[in-house]
């Protein structure tokens, strides 16, 4: 029995390990992270507004453990579970006037791209002999942009399927917003690839090892592209807010003027899927920013910027990656409760008349410097 399993693994090494990575990354990492990102959002918003946030849900046995039990309850640790059960048990109401096919498809189309993008992101160096990336594509970044650009269909179709005013306006707004900021986002990473000379995300991380050199002098900073291309980093970051429909750019669902935006007609689990899609998108764009601008799984000391040779090192790399990602997640949440919403024309103005010219100038300057230096 064991021998036959080992044979199977040896024969289909690539398939088995790829499948394993997909299962672990999606179901054991991404989905729990989505659930706890929602909890973090509620907790952080509560603290910002001087409230306590969810602190009631208790499990029968665990909560009677002294100190740890009540602490987890106060933290709201079990809240995501209860939220999940709630959204499954609620009535799944389909209004009579909706276009059924699209109404069913839209929530799925919102969620799938967020999961597909994870495939090319290197979330660690190596663990044993396995590279910690699901698919090490040569065109990694283009793949990501391609898949991310499909995410807008979910929202547009949700707006169209609902067949009523406010969701429709939300869908229209979001398609305009996402197309505009996708251009700025795509242009902002071009200088990165001019410097790296490769579209593969693993080589982008390989480029960002060691310390920063400016005009021959070594700086006490890591050689991260965030320091070499601060403008690109900033624009990418802001565009990521717009692409994930987060405040200050959450125009598609601005509740004061659109009721709830594209998801107004949805209830129960279908609504929850949109909700999960938003958080999954936040996680993947945080992961992208870490990979592109903050050196991915590397840290510039203790030899942590070389591929791991032992299992603990490999685990440390994964930990570093997740740590950096969580920082971005906290900022995503923090900003939402700190800044007011943009007006729609200001949003478009910022995208087309500020960011796109700035990114184009950045590309030209970077290319010029590279041309002079060679």
């Amino acid at each position, binding site marked *: 029995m064991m021998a036959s399993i080992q044979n199977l693994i040896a024969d289909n090494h690539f398939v088995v390990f790829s499948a394993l990575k997909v299962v672990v990354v999606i179901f054991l990492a991404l989905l729990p992270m989505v659930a706890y990102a929602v909890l973090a959002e509620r907790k952080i918003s509560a603290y910002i507004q001087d409230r306590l946030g969810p602190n009631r849900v208790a499990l029968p046995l665990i909560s009677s453990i002294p100190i740890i039990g009540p602490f987890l309850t106060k933290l709201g640790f079990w809240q995501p579970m209860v939220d999940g059960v709630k959204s499954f048990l609620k009535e799944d109401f389909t209004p009579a006037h909706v276009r059924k096919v699209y109404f069913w498809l839209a929530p799925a189309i919102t969620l799938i791209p967020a999961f597909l993008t994870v495939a090319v992101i290197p979330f660690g160096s190596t663990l044993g002999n396995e590279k910690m990336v699901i698919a090490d*594509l*040569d*065109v990694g970044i*283009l*793949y990501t*942009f*391609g*898949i*991310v*650009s*499909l995410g*807008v*269909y979910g929202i*547009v*179709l949700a*707006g*169209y399927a609902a067949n009523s005013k406010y969701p*429709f306006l939300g*869908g*229209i707004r979001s*398609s*305009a917003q*996402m*197309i505009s900021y*996708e251009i700025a986002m795509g242009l902002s990473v071009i200088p990165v690839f001019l410097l790296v000379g490769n*579209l593969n995300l693993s080589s982008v991380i390989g480029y960002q090892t060691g310390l920063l050199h400016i005009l021959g002098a070594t700086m006490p900073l890591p050689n991260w592209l965030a320091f070499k291309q601060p403008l690109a980093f900033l624009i990418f970051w802001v565009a990521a807010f717009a692409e994930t429909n987060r405040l200050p750019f959450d125009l598609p669902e601005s509740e004061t003027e659109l009721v709830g935006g594209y998801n107004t007609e949805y209830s129960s689990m279908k609504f929850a899927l949109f909700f999960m899609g938003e958080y999954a998108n936040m996680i993947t764009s945080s992961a992208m920013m870490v990979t592109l601008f903050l050196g991915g799984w590397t840290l510039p000391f203790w030899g942590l910027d070389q591929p791991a040779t032992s299992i603990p090192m490999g685990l440390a790399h994964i930990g570093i990656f997740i740590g950096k990602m969580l920082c971005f997640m906290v900022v995503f949440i923090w900003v939402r409760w700190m800044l007011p919403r943009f007006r729609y024309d200001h949003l478009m103005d910022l995208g087309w008349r500020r960011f796109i010219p700035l990114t184009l100038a950045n590309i030209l300057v970077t290319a010029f410097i590279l041309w002079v230096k060679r």
Partner: protein
Amino acid sequence: MQDYLFYIFAAMTLICGALVIVNRNPVNSAMFLVLAIASMAGLFVLLHAFFLAAVQVLVYAGAVMVLFLFVIMLLNLKDEERRRIKKRGVVAGVFAVAVIGWSYYRSIQGADLPTIASADRLEGATIPLGKLLFTNYLLPFEILSVLLLVAMIGVILLSKKDLK
């Protein structure tokens, strides 16, 4: 495996392409066009042209078609759904398809198709493709971009309400 995938993607492309023109609802047509484009990207992947596949999805499915949908949704679709097929349209369509099909047939017949062994030249195509575009095919490339610019200026001119 690769052969089966080819047949699946090819069938998807053709079926979705047919559904684009058969459908009366423009939104459905647009969505099937997206599917057709995505399955064409699958065909590119089977040819190891990853760059083309990614760009195909990024530009056509992700940007152009979203704009299409955007415009379609803002239009009043009632007339479009009621419209009858005209005889003249059918004749023109058949003629156009015949001309394009004939030219395809002739150019495939005349070309010496690469055998399977030479297919790996396409591998890792980003850098070789970029080099080719900026050396051997620079002039066609630039002419194409000027063409797009002309189209864009034309649209701006047409959409201006008061021409001076």
